[in-house]
């Protein structure tokens, strides 16, 4: 404990003197004495080496991507991260700063967030982006709330092909404002059923939500969906790393594009933290209904360009119970990772990475099909994930893979009971041909 607390006995004495009390204890006299405790029921502190030894031991029991090949995606992906990303983002000048309340000494944060907003707009094809939400799921929930707040309508149509955890999150969030959630089913090709969608739209409908690519990896037909949903707020959950190759949702008339930023240079981290992004069409009225912090450009008294938090009248610290959201701390550091990542890969890199994901996953599918044990479940075009049905014993298969240094696909029955023997496979630019052949050879040997 001591290395973080500077107080020497001498300090203590002098400070108590100034305060005019006998001891530290008496500073706590306002706490009702019958509830006072004298200690916490925890062991005493230990030294750095001891702490690290404990933690290192825990870390070593986890099967991590530096030692295992991963063929699992489903919302969190093992992508290649340029070494520079982590090395710059781990500068204390960034990560030990607070929310940029004092803009004059926070231009590093503010400019980088402004640049981030721009990059999100560029890849999504939208006009305005905020400075981040917690994650993809909570961003989506906030988008659904925003749609109802803006339209004053209380029914959201949600494709049943979005990530199940996103759907659960939305369901939690709509309980307060009492927004009804109606699911849209999918066709046998894995895409949103346009007929079902059409049939469910009514004048209570605030928004329609689809994921792009969807939970099963399928590239939804945004154009057709937009045509059907017309003036209803069109919310797209996008995987940003796919947007170097896939057309931007904004091009199809999306009103809100949200998603999770993990794929943009952030480690898997067992699922968190990454960050949620939140972008909308350019609309000065719409933006006032938007949640989250927004950075704007301005000038200082000398006319020099600078950046500040703006449109704060939407936020909880000003608007309190009438705020567009309760969000305060966001996930700014994640946006820094993403900004550095996108700056490094650039438009060409992002495209190439997308193409690699497509080629690798399609090659993986082909090789799986060739084993005779796997058949595709959905027929539509996909990005880096796909569902197959297998005649192998799934748990035996995944154990065999693990023994061979491979974290296998997601067993979908664990998420949706009715999807027995269905596997969600993923391949990214980080999966080498060698890894794929290894996987196949293990599968063939089962």
């Amino acid at each position, binding site marked *: 404990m001591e290395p*973080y607390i*500077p107080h020497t006995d001498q300090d203590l004495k002098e*400070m108590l003197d100034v*305060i005019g009390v006998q001891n530290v204890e*008496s*500073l706590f*006299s*306002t706490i*009702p004495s019958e509830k006072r405790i004298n*200690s*916490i*029921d*925890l062991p005493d*502190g*230990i030294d*750095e080496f*001891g*702490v690290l030894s*404990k933690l290192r031991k825990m*870390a070593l*029991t*986890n099967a991590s991507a530096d030692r295992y090949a991963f063929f699992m995606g489903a919302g969190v992906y093992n992508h290649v991260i340029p070494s520079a990303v*982590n090395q710059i983002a781990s500068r*204390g000048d*960034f990560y*030990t*700063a*607070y*929310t940029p*309340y004092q*803009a004059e*000494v926070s231009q590093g944060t503010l*400019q*980088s967030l402004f*640049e981030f907003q*721009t990059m999100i707009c560029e890849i999504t094809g939208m006009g305005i982006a905020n400075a*981040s939400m917690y994650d993809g*799921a909570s961003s989506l929930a906030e988008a659904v*709330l925003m749609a109802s707040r803006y339209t004053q309508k209380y029914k959201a149509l949600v494709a049943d092909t979005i990530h199940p*955890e996103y759907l659960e*999150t939305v369901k939690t*969030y709509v309980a307060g404002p009492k927004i009804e959630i109606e699911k849209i089913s999918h066709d046998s090709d894995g895409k949103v059923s346009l007929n079902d969608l059409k049939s469910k739209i009514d004048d209570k409908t605030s928004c329609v939500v689809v994921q792009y690519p969807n939970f099963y990896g399928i590239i939804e037909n945004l154009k057709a969906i937009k045509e059907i949903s017309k003036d209803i707020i069109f919310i797209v959950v996008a995987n940003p790393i796919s947007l*170097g*190759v896939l057309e931007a949702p904004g091009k199809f008339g999306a009103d809100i594009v949200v998603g999770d930023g993990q794929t943009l240079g952030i480690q898997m*981290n*067992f699922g*968190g933290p990454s960050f949620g992004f939140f972008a909308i069409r350019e609309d*000065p009225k719409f933006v006032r209904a938007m949640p989250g912090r927004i950075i*704007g450009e301005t000038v200082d008294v000398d006319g020099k360009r600078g950046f500040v938090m*703006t449109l704060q009248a939407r936020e909880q610290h000003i608007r309190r*119970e009438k705020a567009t959201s309760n969000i305060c*701390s*966001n996930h*700014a*550091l994640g946006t820094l990772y993403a900004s550095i990542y996108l700056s490094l890969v*650039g438009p060409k*890199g992002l495209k190439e990475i997308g193409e690699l994901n497509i080629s*690798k996953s399609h*090659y993986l599918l082909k090789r799986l099909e060739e084993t005779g044990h796997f058949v595709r479940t959905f027929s539509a075009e996909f990005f880096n994930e796909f569902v197959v049905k297998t005649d192998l014993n799934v748990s035996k298969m995944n154990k065999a893979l693990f023994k061979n240094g491979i974290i296998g696909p997601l067993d979908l029955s664990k998420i949706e009971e009715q999807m027995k023997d269905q596997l969600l496979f993923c391949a990214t630019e980080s999966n080498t*041909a060698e890894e794929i052949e290894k996987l196949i050879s293990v599968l063939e040997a089962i």
Partner: protein
Amino acid sequence: MELIFEISEHGRRGFIPPKLDVESYDLPDEFKRAEPPRLPEATEGDVVRHYTNLSRLNYAVDVGFYPLGSCTMKYNPKLNEYASSLDGFSKIHPYQDVSTVQGALELMFNLQEDLKSISGMDAMTLQPAAGAHGEYTGVAVIRAYHEYKKDFEKDEMIIPDSAHGTNPATASMNGYKAVEIKSDKNGMVDIEELKKIVGPHTAGIMLTNPNTLGIFDENILKIAEIIHGVGGLLYYDGANFNAIMGKVRPGDMGFDVVHFNLHKTFSTPHGMGGPGAGPIGVKKFLEPFLPVPTIGKKNEKYFFDYSHKHTIGRVRSFYGNFSVLVKAYAYILTMGGDGLKRASEMAVLNANYLKAKISETLEVPYNTRPCMHEFVATTEPLLEHGVKALDFVKRMLDYGVHPPTVYFPLIVHEDIMIEPTETESKETLDKFVEIVEKIAKEAKENPKLLQEAPHITPVRRLDDVRAAKQLILRWK
């Protein structure tokens, strides 16, 4: 500084993706992006320089004193950063079979247990991503509980006028009406007023204790009695937990739900605004309402526990901000029970020391008792010199320290809210006092110096009004 887009040059690259080593698959044209996004095109060197130089424009805890009230800007130990970066923590997938991530689950389980001990609660979830997210989750649990009891009348959440903006905003998001309760002359909840406004509509109360004035509400047991008396529940906003570790537990004071800000009390870095982590703890009777999954342990094996019968569902994907949890856990191991207690003691000592010194220069309202980990002063008397609290703190930037929080809580005019934290030394506090004294003198002798401050920062006072009017929210 130039924007990264402004140093971009078509054709430059900062990273070369892996070579394609399998056959290529060409997506049908209909799916393909027509125009590439205008991302920066720059070398790795350009990018590294850009962000290195940006970082040097930032103030941060690693740079200096950061007495931002309510934010607990304590030092963030490097050990925790290193631990969370270990491959075994950072390169694992949330859907891996639990048998392959036992260490990660063990850590989360232990952290749940530790936070229970510290707060006196019976069950924990680590899922929320920040304080406000914890509030959201906690109030959703309260709502679910009332609904489960078919008590549909309860539609009001009581919130003190000194509360943080996230409290009323959270109440609204959960469909509650936020009912404001006034503070009394001691800065505490006005008990008489409270008695008047509670009733069958009262779903609960959201409190920070100590509150945002840094004052411990001595009537807390009385408040609990009143709220519980009408079937309401008590929500503890743990943003100020740094004042009470090892001294008193929210669970013992009568709170039913509590959130932690691991990024405050447990020293995980704020990351320019996030990520944080906002675990919540509840009393036994609320456990069935917690979001799923929590972490369980059986026969020395750890597992995801989905058994919460009346769960509110999920408030995000996966299990929480895991790498933040690693840092907080490392911190708890390092500090231990004794160290956490000492942290609170020294945090409170520092605040009282600073209050004693600064009250010689600035007015400190409600200054009748010891404060806890922070206190509020006001520069209101300087208004006669044309100096606002904002001017006062902007001048601090010229002296190289980060200003305290200003204009919060809303109930004190021209207030500055100072939280030194336990990791700051007496010398640092003394220097800060000197600066405050200097500026107070300048305010009277040369108010322009403050009104036009800061003078020597990377940019000078920025035009907020213009920013909100001429909305430039992205580079084009």
